[in-house]
């Protein structure tokens, strides 16, 4: 503000009217984003706040909500073993799927940063899975790929391996679903790719003059320079992974034996099968707080491992 003020003071009085006119243009700016703003208020902020209210009620969407105070939260923590099961499954899922996905995205980004003739074609091809992504159709495809008599097992059989019960075994099913997420590495990959191309070439030149191997250049130049993007990807993918739903819903229905009973599935079931909207709202607020907490931890820790060229100032 002080900067603006000092600039304003330097402008002769006759020029100040022009500034006012510019301010009016700013209001026009708000007018332009009004459709988005209305959307935000009605479709996001309003449901967000009302879900907080509903979380303190018993509400079946048909009769009026009945205030029950902290009852829903109390029941979730003390009387609902499925809550803990779904938390456990989701925790494992996030811890596994997110790092693997980021590592894979980085790996592909490294490959695609090579200067080849048809590189744009390859980049498009590798981005395709992310467009098809979390859709129902792909989930159905996943089922046919990984079912006991599916494509993957018949390929394995040719190598005299398997069959593996990818989706039917309570010990494996969650990892198979994790693969579906990892497969959608495209958006992280694009960001890594952009980051890699931003790294100044002279760093690598200096490295190679000093006799650094490609391996150590990757870990000592590329990775540190990419950490801001790692941070962004990590947070975004973590938030998404906590809310993962489609694959588990379409392919396994949370089974076998609740081994893929992700939190979002539990939430959905309470809301749309049992019609316990108040209870489900409470569940969604607990998830919100968990995600906020994990995000805060990641940001807090980022000072220790994220490298900024300008020192983060």
């Amino acid at each position: 503000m002080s900067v603006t003020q000092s600039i304003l003071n330097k402008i002769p009085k006759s020029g100040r009217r022009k500034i006012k006119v510019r301010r009016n243009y700013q209001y026009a700016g708000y007018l332009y984003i009004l459709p988005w703003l209305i959307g935000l208020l009605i479709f996001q902020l309003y449901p967000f706040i009302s879900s907080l209210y509903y979380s303190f009620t018993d509400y079946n969407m048909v009769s009026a909500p009945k205030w029950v105070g902290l009852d829903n939260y109390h029941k979730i923590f003390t009387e609902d073993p499925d809550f803990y099961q779904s938390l456990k499954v989701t925790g494992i899922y996030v811890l596994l799927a997110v790092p693997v996905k980021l590592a894979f995205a980085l790996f592909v980004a490294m490959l695609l940063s090579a200067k080849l003739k048809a590189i744009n074609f390859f980049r498009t091809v590798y981005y395709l899975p992310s467009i098809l992504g979390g859709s129902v159709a792909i989930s159905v495809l996943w089922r046919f790929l990984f079912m006991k008599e599916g494509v993957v097992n018949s390929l394995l059989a040719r190598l005299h391996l398997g069959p593996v019960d990818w989706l039917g075994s309570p010990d494996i099913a969650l990892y198979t679903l994790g693969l579906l997420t990892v497969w959608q590495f495209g958006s992280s990959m694009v960001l890594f790719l952009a980051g890699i191309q931003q790294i100044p070439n002279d760093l690598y030149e200096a490295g190679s003059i000093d006799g650094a191997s490609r391996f150590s250049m990757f870990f000592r130049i590329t990775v540190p320079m990419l950490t801001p993007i790692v941070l962004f990807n990590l947070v975004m993918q973590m938030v998404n992974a906590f809310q993962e739903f489609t694959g588990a819903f379409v392919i396994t229905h949370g089974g076998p034996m609740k081994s893929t009973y992700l939190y979002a599935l539990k939430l959905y079931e309470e809301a749309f099968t049992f019609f316990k909207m108040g209870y489900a709202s409470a569940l969604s607020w607990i998830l919100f707080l968990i995600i906020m907490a994990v995000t805060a931890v990641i940001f807090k820790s980022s000072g220790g491992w994220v490298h900024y060229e300008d020192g983060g100032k």
Partner: protein
Amino acid sequence: MKRNKWGAMGLASLLLASLLGGCSSGKSASNTSTNAGNAANAEEKVTLRFSWWGGEDRHAATLAAIEAYKQVAPNVTIEAEYQGFDGYEQKIKTQLAGKTSADIMQLDLPWLQELTKKGDFFVDLNTQPEFDASGFDQGFLDNYGMYDGKLAAVPTGVNAYCLIINKSLADKLNVDSAAQWTWDSLLEAGKQLHAQDSSKYLLLTDHAALRQDMVTMLKQRTGKQWVQEDYTLGFTKEDAAASFDWLYQAMQAGVYQPLGESDLFFGKIDQNPKWINQEIPIAPSMSSILPSLKTVLPEGTEVITALPVIAKDAKDSGVLVRPSQLFAVSNDSAHKTEAVKFLSWFMNDPGAAALLGDVRSVPPVKASQEAAVTAGKIDAAITNAVELGLSHAGLVDNAVANNSEVQKIMDDIVQKVSYGKSNAEQAADELIASLTSKLKDLQDRE
């Protein structure tokens, strides 16, 4: 790259807020029917929405009937909203709550029982002069369509639990397709078949069918509903343990395909490759499923039906006879009269019946049944299943036994037993403990 810690935090939390907000809002903004006024006169253009679930054959037949209705009422356009079973329940319930449901909708019995308790969603068809209910069996309507003295819905067909048998395959595998099974003989035959050839299983299933088997077994042992209308249990620990013990043995012996494989096709057992590739000869299921199970088999495959398993000393047959589904007209419909007129035509018109045939099992209206039979559109196997069912019909399921939260408890325990993670004793204990607390919870919420 610069960073602004608090800015980023703020942005991240806003993003979270919007993601979660979007997640919990749920209500979909779907199209409402054209609102041209309530009184529908003959000349007025009216658009009605009609939603149902089913397989390909049901979709095709229903669409053909809708097409035929254009001749009957040229001013009425019917928009079809159809899909598979998966997710339909959630869609319908959400639409009803959000007052965006179709004008005419197909419902499953348990949802209807639940929904009529929670609100006044459906038109009382008895008050509608346009609706002709005279062809229905009054007892069937009273048992399944009447709630609080109102005719909230009508049965789409008469559906009976039966064994659907791929006879061509059964003959090849030396499985007796004419047998009247008991639980013991079924277990024995299944064990033998799987021992002969480990790729073969006697019975096609998913967790819902296993739940049905367990409930049937309890009914046969006790002669009572497993969960009573007054929120008490109709069975003892011994009854439950005996039933789970049978299931445990059957799973271990390979009578059923492992649940991990079969349950990938939950609600769509006709898509199970083991059935399609003719490695499983018998599907215990509702008769309405027969057409979709039959169409996936090669032409010329003989598919018959038989009475489901009845224990020798059964106190109740446990044979389930119920509406395939039910049709209801939404109370929020802008064109109730037109919607009721269409439904009445759909259920009673001989031409419609000839188009629809057995896609919702045997039509509940006598005249429609005859028309469909004359048109050669009813599979004799389905008629057989329904006749067997009607002559052996067991207890009528009550709303509490059909409650989705109650059923989920049985589903979970059935899975534990099927995967060998619980033995019969543990499962019985868990069933009783979980049900007792859930029933209390449900009663409190009433």
